[in-house]
C-alpha cells in the first residue's frame, strides 16, 4: 500500500490548483455559462497547454499515458470549480473509445484513426462527444435503437440521440448504432466516428441543470465509410461498458471535489453566520449535521479512489464493473445528502442563484444520476456480487 501521490501527480495537482485559481473563479464561470458557446475556448486552450487534454491518452498518440488515478486531482478540481468545459466528454469518453477500440481486421485503419484524432484532442484542436443515450434507454447501455445499415462499402446511420453531454460543441461524434439485433440486445452494437457537419446530422443545443450544454442529435441516413468504425462491428458493448466504467469512476472523483467545495462553503457559513448573537455553528444540532457531511466526504473520497484504482488495474470486467457500481451508488447517496444539507444549512442564502453553493447543488444533483442513479448501480452491484 502507498497512499501518497507520486511526485508527478503532486506537481500536476499544484499546477491544476494554480490554473483554477487564476482562470476559473466563480464569477468567471458565471460568464462562461452565460456565453453563447457555453464554454470557454481560452480555458480549453489553457487546459491543452497544461497537458490536461492528453492526460489519460496513450503516449504513442500525443498523450501522457496516465490512468484514472492520474486524473483524480483534475477531476476533483473540475468538481470543485464546477468546470463546464467538455473534458469528460472529449477525453474520458470519445477519445477513450477511439484509443481502446480494437479491430484485428482493420489494424492499419485503426492506427490511422487514432493518429488523426488523438493528438488533435491532446492539443485542444478537436472536441468529442459520445452520442449514445436514447429516449427509451434510461441508464441501460445496451439499449440502442439507432441503426447503421451496411451500404456501398460503408454504413448509413439513422436514429435520434438525446441530451448528449457536450454534444453542442463537439467537432466529432462517436456514435453507437445497431448493426444487428433488436433494440435491447447485447450483441449487434457498433461504434462510428461521425463528423459534426456530415450531411444528415442535425443538432438542437440544450441547457442542462448543471450549467453545461448538451444536444439532441438526429441522424438521417448519414453516410460513413467503413474506416469510421471503432473496434469490431457488432461487438461494441464490452468496449462501451469499459469506457463508461472509466468515465463513471472519474465522475465519482469529480463528485468528491464538488462535495469538498460544498462542505468547505457550509463549514465557513456555520462559522461566520451569526444568529441569536452567536455563530450558528455553535449549535450542537447543526454541528452534528456538519460532522455527518464531513464523514460523507471521507467515504466518498475512499470509494472514488477504489473505483479509479479498479478501472486502472481490473483485468476482470465483472470485478471492475462491480467496484464502479459500488462507488457510483455510494457517491449518488453522498451527492444527495451533501447537496440537500448544504442548502438547508445555508438557509435562504443557499437558494440564491448568486451564491456558488446553489450551483454546486445542481452539479451534485446531476452527478447523482449521471451514468446511472443510485438504484441503477445498486442493482448492478448486486447482480455482479
Amino acid at each position: 500500500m502507498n497512499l501518497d501521490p507520486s511526485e508527478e501527480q503532486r506537481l500536476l495537482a499544484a499546477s491544476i490548483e494554480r490554473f483554477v485559481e487564476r482562470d476559473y473563479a466563480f464569477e468567471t464561470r458565471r460568464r462562461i455559462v452565460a456565453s453563447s458557446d457555453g464554454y470557454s475556448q481560452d480555458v480549453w486552450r489553457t487546459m491543452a497547454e497544461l497537458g490536461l487534454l492528453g492526460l489519460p491518452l496513450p503516449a504513442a498518440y500525443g498523450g501522457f499515458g496516465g490512468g484514472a488515478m492520474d486524473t483524480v486531482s483534475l477531476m476533483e478540481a473540475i468538481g470543485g470549480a464546477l468546470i463546464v468545459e467538455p473534458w469528460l466528454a472529449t477525453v474520458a469518453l470519445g477519445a477513450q473509445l477511439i484509443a481502446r477500440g480494437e479491430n484485428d481486421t482493420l489494424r492499419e485503419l485503426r492506427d490511422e484513426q487514432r493518429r488523426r484524432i488523438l493528438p488533435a484532442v491532446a492539443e485542444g484542436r478537436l472536441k468529442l462527444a459520445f452520442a449514445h443515450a436514447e429516449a427509451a434507454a434510461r441508464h441501460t447501455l445496451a439499449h440502442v435503437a439507432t441503426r447503421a445499415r451496411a451500404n456501398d462499402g460503408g454504413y448509413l446511420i439513422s436514429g435520434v440521440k438525446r441530451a448528449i453531454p457536450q454534444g453542442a460543441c463537439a467537432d466529432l461524434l462517436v456514435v453507437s448504432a445497431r448493426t444487428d439485433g433488436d433494440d435491447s440486445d447485447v450483441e449487434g452494437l457498433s461504434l462510428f466516428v461521425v463528423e459534426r457537419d456530415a450531411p444528415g446530422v442535425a443538432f438542437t443545443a440544450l441547457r442542462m441543470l448543471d450549467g453545461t450544454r448538451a444536444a439532441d442529435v438526429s441522424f438521417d441516413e448519414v453516410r460513413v465509410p467503413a474506416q469510421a468504425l471503432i473496434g469490431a462491428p457488432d461487438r461494441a458493448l464490452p468496449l462501451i461498458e469499459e469506457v463508461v466504467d472509466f468515465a463513471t469512476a472519474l465522475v465519482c472523483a469529480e463528485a468528491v471535489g464538488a462535495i469538498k467545495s460544498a462542505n468547505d462553503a457550509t463549514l465557513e457559513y456555520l462559522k461566520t453566520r451569526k444568529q441569536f448573537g452567536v455563530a450558528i455553528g455553535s449549535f450542537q444540532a447543526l454541528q452534528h449535521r456538519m460532522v455527518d457531511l464531513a464523514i460523507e466526504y471521507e467515504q466518498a473520497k475512499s470509494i472514488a479512489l477504489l473505483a479509479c484504482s479498479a478501472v486502472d488495474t481490473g483485468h476482470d470486467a465483472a470485478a471492475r464493473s462491480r467496484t464502479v457500481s459500488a462507488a457510483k451508488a455510494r457517491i449518488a447517496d453522498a451527492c444527495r445528502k451533501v447537496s440537500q444539507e448544504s442548502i438547508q444549512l445555508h438557509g435562504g442564502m443557499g437558494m440564491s442563484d448568486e451564491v456558488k453553493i446553489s450551483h454546486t447543488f445542481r452539479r451534485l444533483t446531476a452527478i447523482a444520476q449521471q451514468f446511472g442513479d443510485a438504484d441503477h448501480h445498486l442493482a448492478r452491484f448486486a447482480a455482479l456480487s
Partner: protein
Amino acid sequence: MDLDYSADERAFRDHVRGWLRANLPAPMRDKVVRYAPLDRDDLLGWHRILAGQGWIAPSWPREWGGTGWNVVQRYIFEEECGYAGAPPLIPFGLAMCAPVLLEFGSDAQKRRFLPRIYRGDDVWCQGYSEPGSGSDLASLRTSAVRRDDRYIVNGQKTWTTIAHLADWIFCLVRTDAAIERKQEGISFLLIDMKTRGITVRPLPLMDGRHEVNEVFFDDVEVPIENRVHDEGKGWTVAKYLLGHERMNTARIGTSKRELERLKAFAAAQSKNGAPLTDDPRFRDKLSRVEIELMALAITNLRFLDQLRGGRVPGAEVSMLKIKGTEIQQALTELMLEAGGPLAQVLGPADPVDIGAPNDDFLAALAPRYCNMRKTTIYAGSNEIQRNIIARHALGL
C-alpha cells in the same frame, strides 16, 4: 372513535368538490399542475373567483366576510382546493396581514384594508427577513424614526416573496434602538410600495425564476396611522402572525394530488423495458412517501380536532410543517428521479428561448426540485420548528 368524516362533513366536502369542478378555470389548473410560473393575473384571478363565491376568507369573522365554517370545514376546503389544483392564494394579505388587523388593528385600519384584501384589490408582501436576521428575526435592524406624524424608514429586507408584484408591504421595523430587550423595540408598519425611497431588486433563485427580492428603504415616509398596535408591540404582532403562517403548511391535498401525478408519471416511464413503477427499488420509495402522507393526513385531523374547542394552536403546527414539507420535497425528488437523465434538460440553449415559458413537463421537474428546497427553510426553518417543539411541547 371514527377516523372518517361525518355525514355532514362529507356532504360539505362533496359540495366544495363539485363547486371547484365547475368553477376552477382549466387553464389556471393546467398551469398549476404543469409547474408553470403563475403571474399576478393567475394569482389574483383565482382570488377574485373565490371572493365572488364568498369563500376567500373563511376564517375571518362573518362581519368581514368570513364563512362561519368550523376548523374541520376550513381544513376540508383548503385540502380540496389543493387537491383540485387551484392556484395557491397569496397568503400575505389574506392569511397574514388580515388576521393581524383583525386582532390588533384600529377600526379605521380594518375598514381601510380588509375590504380591499377581501376583494383582491392589492397584492401584499411580507417585510420580515433581513440580511442579518433570518431565524433570529428579533435582531432586525431596519429603523423607523418618528418625525411628527410620520416614521422615516431606513434599511433593507430580503427574501421578500413577490415584492415585485406587491402594492403593499407589512414590515417589522425597529422604533427603539436603545432598549435592551431587542424584542421590545420593534413595531409593525404597513407601507405603500409606491412610496418614494423604496427600491426592489430581484434576487434570482437557483431555479432561475424571479420570486423573491431585496427591498431597500431609503428615507421612506410612512404615516403614523399605518402602524398596527402600539409602538414597540411589533413582536407581539409578529408572534401572533407566525402562528397563522404555519397553520396550513401540511398541504395534504396538494401532496395527494402530487402523489397521484407521480404514480401516473412513473408508470409511463420505462426502465429495462417495464414501467418504472414495477421496479421494486423505486416502488418502495414511492410507497414510503405514500404511507407517510397517509399518517400525516390523520395527524393533521387529530390536531384539528383538538382545535375544535377554540384552543390556540401550539407546537402541533410545527410538526405539521416539518412532515408536510419533508413529504413535498420527497415527492419532487422522486418526480425528478422518475424523469431520469432527460429531466436534466432545462430547455433549448438558443438565447431567444431562455426565459421563455417552457411547456415541457419533463423540463419543469429539475427547477421544481430546486425550488422546493425552500420549503424546509421558509416560514420558520424546520430547525426553528424543532426548537419550538423541543421547548414548548417537550419542555426541553
